[in-house]
């Protein structure tokens, strides 16, 4: 009898161990979150179109067809052409590449900035934490869009500039969430235990705390991705983003779209449509991922207790959504 029970336990353990963490996340995403799966598909399409833009696009992004200026959609040019005779579909496809590059690099940079600031501020605590947090407070008080516009107007238009500026600004704002997570993890007994056996602070941060705050980091990344893509488009729309010539969806909408909106409404319709679908997909995916990875945060602020930190959670939630202009 007893031997039987003992024999069954290890077997079950082996079975549950077979699935990796990510496989589990993907299976739950597909099973439980149809809209999240839709979002994931949009993200994958964006990546594929962005990476293979030069194979997918029928024409070059700045290739002019002077016989087809502002022409309506046709079989040759599926969505029509702009005022320089450039094929709109091809420019949209290259626009996906711009959004993808700025989105991913900008969000990666902002994650790194968030992790560094959040870890240092949350782990060290005390006076360091207080000084760092006052600066973060300051950054959060200036409306993000105004600050970004101001800085972009000084550093000038450019892909590199926009990635750095978006990455650092969003990183500073996003560090709050990471800091909260670090403080929550820090009070765990295993952290004190590793401290007691003489772990260095660096090792503690990287080996013991960092792996345990992966959920907020991943959530921050996916939510930030939508915000970064949207922000780049908004800045480019106002002329403070990528330089002219590079087909960003935002600048296409304002440069070609608004100027020729009466002759060729397509030029304004499609860039905004692509932007909406991509940001919608990324947000849906991010939301589903958050539900799966951090059940406490489900549907916004979820079931956090009404004491003290709820207001902070609320603030973090709104500030995280701030990029959506």
């Amino acid at each position, binding site marked *: 009898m007893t031997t039987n029970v003992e024999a069954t336990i290890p077997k079950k353990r082996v079975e549950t161990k077979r699935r990796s963490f990510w496989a589990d996340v993907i299976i739950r995403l597909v099973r439980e979150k149809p809209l999240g799966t839709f979002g994931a598909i949009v993200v994958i399409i964006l990546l594929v179109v962005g990476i293979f833009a030069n194979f997918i696009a029928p024409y070059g992004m700045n290739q002019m067809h002077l016989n087809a200026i502002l022409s309506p959609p046709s079989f040759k040019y599926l969505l029509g052409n702009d005022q320089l005779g450039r094929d709109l579909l091809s420019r949209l496809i290259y626009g996906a590449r711009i959004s993808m590059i700025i989105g991913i690099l900008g969000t990666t940079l902002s994650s790194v900035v968030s992790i560094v600031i959040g870890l240092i501020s949350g782990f060290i605590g005390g006076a360091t934490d207080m000084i760092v947090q006052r600066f973060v407070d300051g950054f959060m*008080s200036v409306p993000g869009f105004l600050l970004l516009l101001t800085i972009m107007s000084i550093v000038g238009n450019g892909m590199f500039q926009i990635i750095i500026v978006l990455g650092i600004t969003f990183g500073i704002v996003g560090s709050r969430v990471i800091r909260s997570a670090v403080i929550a993890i820090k009070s765990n007994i295993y952290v004190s235990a590793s401290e007691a056996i003489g772990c260095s602070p660096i090792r503690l941060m990287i080996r013991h705390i960092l792996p345990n705050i992966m959920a907020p980091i991943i959530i921050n990344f996916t939510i930030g991705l939508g915000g970064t893509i949207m922000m780049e488009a908004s800045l480019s729309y106002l002329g403070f983003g990528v330089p002219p010539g590079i087909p960003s969806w935002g600048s296409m909408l304002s440069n070609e779209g608004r100027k020729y*909106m009466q002759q060729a409404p397509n030029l304004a319709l499609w860039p905004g449509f692509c932007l909406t679908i991509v940001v919608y997909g990324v947000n849906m995916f991010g939301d589903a991922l958050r539900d799966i990875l951090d059940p406490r945060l489900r549907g916004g602020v979820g079931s956090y207790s009404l004491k003290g930190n709820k207001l902070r959670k609320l603030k973090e939630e709104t500030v995280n*959504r701030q990029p959506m202009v």
Partner: protein
Amino acid sequence: MGAYAIRRLLWVPVTVIVVSIIIFLSTRFIPGNIIDLIESEMAAMGATGIINTKAVSHALGLDVPVYVQYARWIGNIVLHGSLGTSFLSKTNITSEILQRIPVTAELGIMATVIGVLISIPIGVWSAMRQDTISDYVLRSIAILLISVPSFWIATMIFIYPSIWWNWTPPIQLISFTKDPLGNLRMFIIPALVLGAALSGVTMRMTRAMMLEVLRQDYTRTAWAKGLSERVIVIRHALKNALIPVVTIIGLQIPLIIGGEVIIEQIFVLPGIGRLILDALTNRDYPMVEGINLVIASFVILINLFVDLTYGWLDPRVHYE
């Protein structure tokens, strides 16, 4: 609460000082000098060597170390209540900002009201019908509203109605005192665009808060007493759920101001958003700094107000 309020109040000046430093440095410390920018732009227009770099930098007060510039700037604000004069129009920045506030405030308030009117009923409905098809649809719409760029919707409003019905939104500013209805009619469309974008966040928050309250014991008690669903939802649940939602609406102000920059530009409204965009394109940095400081101070005050009223609205909240 009292000790918390005092501590919170004491932090306000510190935050304002930090913000003023961030704003000041954002235009000074970043590589690229304002004068170089002006010069290169003049050169691009075919006018080289017209400006005397030294004289210009002296006139703008840029020939002294950064901390002296900062001290002068702050000193002027504290002692004379003046944000300085504009590079370009040589007018007083404070009075220029004050002039623009009514338009921005009206648009912001209307957008907030519209956002609330859209989001709260839908959020409540979504929570009452949790995990049904209508809940899924409404939640997807909420995320869609967050994801649609307002500048795209605004542009579409200028394009398609004019093609289909030969109608364009009014863009001539009508003063409220002269023609209140005409004024509201011209503000309603930009306010709708902005309000819809804001409602997504509030809708999600309302739903989450309602769900939490609907699971509480006192809601169950209300059900057990045999009260009608309407009474339970409105009198018992909504009242409690709205407390955090109200604070969120207060915290959305930076978002509204960011959105207004774009909306005012598209709908040609002479508000603060237009002022800062014009200042940025003309490289009028004293103006940019002034506007950023005024807006950030306003946001800090709203934050303070939200923090303090939260505990008063909801006595269950304990401050750390």
